[in-house]
């Protein structure tokens, strides 16, 4: 019997039916735990938060319905404008630079071999395992305006000690630099995984053709690593929009009104001033901002990649 005969023997409806009842049931059972947990821990609280933003309420407890008043208050709030700009500024300072630096380091580390590669990779990755409080203490101490070990270097350039965390124009760039130092290990790992997936034969062929190193990078590495680059950029964008820890810690006790980001505004409204409804309003706006920006970025980058 030939394959054509066997195919012709199977009745048409059975062959066309794609959703076998048992398979669907099994699929549902497998997905159910995740869906339940996701619904309880994410969907439900998010809906509650959106509902809360229409109320004047304390952090915990019932409140009074006030419609869109919180949103109107938000757009007139000077502090919201400052927090929004600080967040966007921080994103500009960290997302692209962190990705590019990580790629450069990954390309460099990939060229090393053996234990040397492992050692250098570990050096770049170790900051990532530190908790933020340790990072805060270490860098706060190094930059201390009186006794910091980096101050002599700064004094060479600036002519005297500079209290970087109390000098407004320097605050965000310094915190951005520290953030990049802290989190770059993760991006490097992603890039190295992507680089190792590129077959070395392509590079050998290019080398045989006499292609210079730089051309190899722009014509081979860059396009082939593009999906990873998009991934890293998106992860970074979402993460840095939610910046709180470092900015809060380094700015604590100082001009917090001028340096706070959106998440800190949520914390201040909900936890310090016990204004849960207003905090929820800021959170909803931040959520929408992140959704819009990440979708925009993803579409833009995908479009470029497809050309």
């Amino acid at each position, binding site marked *: 019997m030939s394959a054509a005969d066997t195919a012709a023997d199977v009745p048409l409806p059975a062959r066309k039916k794609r959703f076998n009842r048992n398979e669907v049931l099994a699929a549902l059972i497998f997905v159910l735990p995740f869906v339940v947990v996701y619904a309880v821990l994410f969907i439900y609280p998010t809906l509650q938060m959106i509902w809360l933003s229409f109320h004047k309420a*304390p*952090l*915990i*407890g019932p409140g009074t319905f006030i419609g869109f008043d919180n949103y109107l208050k938000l757009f007139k709030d000077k502090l919201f404008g400052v927090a929004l700009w600080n967040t966007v500024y921080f994103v500009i300072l960290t997302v692209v630079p962190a990705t590019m630096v990580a790629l450069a380091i990954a390309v460099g580390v990939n060229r090393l071999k053996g234990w040397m590669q492992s050692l250098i990779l570990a050096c770049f990755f170790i900051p990532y395992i530190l908790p933020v409080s340790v990072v805060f203490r270490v860098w*706060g101490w190094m930059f*201390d*305006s*009186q*006794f910091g070990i980096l101050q002599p270097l700064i004094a060479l350039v600036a002519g005297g000690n500079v*209290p970087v*965390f*109390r*000098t*407004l124009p320097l605050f965000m760039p310094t915190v951005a630099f520290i953030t990049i130092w802290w989190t770059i290990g993760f991006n490097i790992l992603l890039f190295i995984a992507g680089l190792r997936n590129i077959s070395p034969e392509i590079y050998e062929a290019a080398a045989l053709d006499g292609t210079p190193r730089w051309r190899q990078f722009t014509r081979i590495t860059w396009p082939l690593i593009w999906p990873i680059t998009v991934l890293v950029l998106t992860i970074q964008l979402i993460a840095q929009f939610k910046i709180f820890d470092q900015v809060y810690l380094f700015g*604590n*006790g*100082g*001009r*917090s*009104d*001028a340096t706070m980001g959106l998440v800190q505004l949520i914390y201040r409204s909900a*936890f*310090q*001033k*016990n204004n849960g409804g207003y905090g929820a309003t800021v959170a909803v706006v931040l959520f929408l901002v992140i959704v819009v920006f990440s979708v925009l970025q993803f579409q833009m980058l995908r479009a470029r990649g497809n050309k």
Partner: protein
Amino acid sequence: MKSFLKMAVLSAGLLSTTGLVHAQEVVTWWDFLGGGDGVRMKALIEKFNAENAGKIEIQGTTLEWGTPFYTKVQTSAAIGEGPDVMTYHLSRLPLGVSSGALSEITADEIAAAGLAGSDYADSNWKAAQVDGKQYAIPFDIHSIVLYYNKDMLKAAGLLGDNGLPTGLDGVDNFKAALQKLKDGGAEYGVSIHSAAGDSQWRIFYSLLGQQDGQFLDADGNFLSGDNLDKAVKATTVVADWVKDGLAPAATEYPASIALFTGGKAAMHINGVWEVPTMTDLNAKGELFDWGAIALPTFFDHPATWADSHAFAIPNRVGNEVSPEKRAAVMQVIAWMNKNSLAWADAGHIPAYSPVRNSEEFKTKQPNATYSVLADTAVFDPSSVLAGVASPVYDAAGNYLMPAVNGEIDPQSAMEQMRDDLQGQVE
């Protein structure tokens, strides 16, 4: 297998009976005492546990001072979690009560513990009440003092025969003294924690009090009338020191202490809670001859900012502290008050009058030198916007601190501070 099972059941039975015999109240305790005084508090807790073994045991946790502590207390109380007793700043009591975080302490409970309102200074006891209801029991009164390096002051001719500084009273005299000390080789005349609003608030508030200025008047207005000018004057005093290099700019808390203990600054303005730090260093032979006096009188009369640590019981919604536990907590509070002489080692002034008026405290150094400040202490304004980790402290960081460091001029800083806080009044 059968004998193993028998053994297991037997040991489980024995263990549970031992549990029943040693039924003791475990009191969960939260505090924010992490400075030099924290060590002394841990010793006090250990002493209590030793003396009350088998009856009451304190299990203490020390959390981060300031906003982290108070937000944690508030949120945990609101969902029925949290400690059985905690330390609390009286300056923050109005805010704590208004957010429902504190549980009222009844007159019966106070009497049953052997305490009474007459055992405390009137203003102190009243500061622990809101609307006539008691929400906390005071423990200490703490303030800021002027630490000084005896050798450096002597060399500059600023030390009297009794070993105490002279010639420091008055704005101009103090500034001249700072200059003399700097000329004598010190990098700074006085070191201050100038990178944050909380420390600057304490100095500012003292100077404001010395002019009889009111930060919040009876009508609920901030810096009204000539209080604004007095506030500007107070800010300018400190800003001048920084401008002329007599005090360090934008210096963090540990660095400000290190400048003094390292001999780079001849004097240091900080809280009494660093007295144990100085004492311990001196005992190890790592610190020069030092002393501490009440803040000099810069203006009309002496006055020093003060706050009070007190014990409070959180209002745990849905999981209230049981009556037996409350009784144990009151015993803890009473014990702590009666033994607060040891707490004076941490530099604080005991709030419990029998201890404060005792011979032992009156002769305890360096407390005896500066405890006179208790008579002229000015406490934070009583408002839901004031107290530790409050909008007033935030405003101090946003306006007062930059003014001290010369980033904003004192006049506009005080005006902005007033407008910011007034705008937050509901």
